[in-house]
């Protein structure tokens, strides 16, 4: 995973509450079996005037000039400013892949839906929760100042405004550690493999019905993977 330490970037404002993951990446693009290439269809129904289908050449599409990401002043934005309950709805990680693939590395909002919030950290996208009044103030500042940039310092857990104001934010220490170091969570978990096995052994004795499989799966060999 890409490390996240310090970032100074243009902020794009998306001024609506309850932005759902269906809106972030519409379902017709979920048919891909890859992790990349979703950026062209981020916010597809809002961003383009024509109806988006997989495989279309983004250069041939009709962008909606009113949509915020199409406005010249927000080109190159890497920080998204949003309203409450951002990322609600479907669990699709494609929503995070699309934001990251487009170029976003952080989303600032008063609140996030739980699954989206989790998914973000797994992909080097930093979700920052700030007080609603503060977010409101940032919306006004962004609107008033073309080229408005924020500096995010993850190790210090701060945002810095162009005026030099420093705003602290909270983040879970373990998640911060993983993001700053770019760590793979599966590797970290597998360091505790013995504890997982010990738990499993105990549960097999206590609640064996949790481990019964229907007859057709018993002893079915895996054709792939090392043992």
């Amino acid at each position, binding site marked *: 995973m890409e490390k996240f330490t310090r970032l100074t970037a243009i902020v794009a404002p998306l001024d*609506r*509450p*309850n932005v*759902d993951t*269906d*809106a972030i990446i*519409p*379902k017709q693009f*979920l*048919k*891909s*079996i*890859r*992790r990349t290439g979703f950026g062209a269809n981020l916010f597809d*129904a809002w961003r383009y005037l024509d*109806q988006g289908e*997989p*495989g279309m050449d983004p250069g041939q599409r009709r962008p909606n000039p009113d949509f915020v990401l199409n406005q010249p002043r927000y080109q190159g934005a890497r920080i998204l400013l949003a*309203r*409450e*309950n951002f990322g*609600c*709805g*479907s*669990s699709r*990680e*494609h929503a995070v892949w699309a934001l990251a693939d487009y170029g976003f590395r952080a989303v600032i909002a008063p*609140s996030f*839906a*739980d*699954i989206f919030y*989790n*998914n973000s950290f*797994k*992909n080097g996208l930093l979700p920052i929760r700030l007080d609603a009044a503060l977010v409101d103030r940032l919306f006004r500042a962004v609107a008033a100042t073309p080229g408005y940039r924020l500096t995010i310092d993850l190790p210090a857990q701060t945002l810095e405004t162009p005026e030099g104001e420093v705003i602290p934010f909270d983040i*879970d220490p*373990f998640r911060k550690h993983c993001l700053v170091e770019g760590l793979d*969570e*599966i590797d970290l*978990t597998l360091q*505790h493999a013995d*504890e*997982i096995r010990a*738990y*499993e052994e105990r549960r097999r004795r206590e*609640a*064996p*019905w*949790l*481990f*019964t*499989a*229907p007859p057709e799966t018993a002893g*079915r*060999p*895996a*054709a*792939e*993977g*090392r043992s």
Partner: protein
Amino acid sequence: MIPRHGNPRQGQEGGSGMAARTLYDKLWDAHVVRTDDNGTALLYIDRHLVHEVTSPQAFEGLRLAGRRPWRPDSVLAVPDHNVPTTDRSAGIQDPVSRLQVETLDRNCEAFGILEFTMDDPRQGIVHVIGPEEGATLPGMTVVCGDSHTSTHGAFGALAFGIGTSEVEHVLATQCLLQKKSRNLLLRVDGRLGEGVFAKDIALALIGTIGTAGGTGCTIEFGGEAIRALSMEGRMTLCNMSIEAGARAGLVAVDETTVEYLEGRPFAPRGELWDRAVADWFELHSDEDALFDREVVLDAGCLAPQVTWGTSPEMVVAVTEVVPDPAEEADPVRRSGMERALAYMDLRPGTAITDIHLDRVFIGSCTNSRIEDLRAAAAVIRGRRVAEGIRQALVVPGSGLVKAQAEAEGLDRVFRAAGFEWREPGCSMCLAMNADRLEPGERCASTSNRNFEGRQGQGGRTHLVSPTMAAAAAIAGHFVDVRTF
């Protein structure tokens, strides 16, 4: 705050000296492998359900790292989102959908995972087949790369949706990194009136607490009205916990749960069954357990619900009118309402029963089980779908639901009324297959999300119960099913 579930078998452990715990606390405690200093737990996962949309990248990740599934026999896979609901003998026409389904087949084959393939009679929506097979059992942790995994909480299982990276994490380690959430009790007192269903409780709850009302919480549903619900009704309710912002919903185990599970293919048998059942009856909140928050609804006051906007919280009773944004004080909410009304092409003050429809969809993991189909069929028996309705679709939740309905003659009732009777899958709930709304079309749907474009770009969705959808199909517009 003291919940009273009235479970006749509870109460043994109250005096053991242990602090009183909620059902969620108990499930959590039983699955913690380890906890680190800042409270992040490694939680053991008993059942992992997999579908074609959120798994390909997870399997690819396993391959790239040279890993294999920790416990393949804990995984059950099924394609559901992309499958056609019309004749399947010719396979899937859309090459992109086909590739995704074939990728699932290949991954399951390669990693030794049981899959109900598209032609299997047991194929269906993942959240319908898990319980139907007894693959979801009380006391389990159940995950799936799908937010409606909350459905399985109806069995007293801790069940929640995860993202694709977490799917890979569970495949590789049988565990998830989790922080404990807060306990929210939703108590529904009294009894539901005639024509009012679990779906109406779910919608009314979301209307009350909002789509973010349960964020960071696990909701336990309790109270007289919940105890009176069938397993199907409880699944409908838990299914929509995620629409209230909660990752998981729970209902305590009782006789209804146990009766439903007995004899199902994955359920234990013989002596193991008896041991399991004894254990399961402990799966309820202790009498004096504390919840962080409690919300009380009176079932007797509930009318059938209809959403009018583009978020499940934008909902009113069928007897009401489309609300007026001018009366909303909060500016962010007001502009959200205005945008929703523009998208839905509705005017404030319009009676819900004056809203005319183009299509009707009965299906989805919320409402496609046998009881839902029976209730809808009872409304339409001997009647005809209205002239103005372009399409009325019934999509059973699984092959077994479909077979059961056909054995009861429900398919004939639907067909005679002018409904299409389809093969199982997600279908028009999210329109990833060929079933979808055209731009501007208005649909009464028994699914769970009315987001912009959810059922097809530009499509307009009104969420309702199966009987409300059925009655709307006959009338051509919404009607109060209680007086229909």
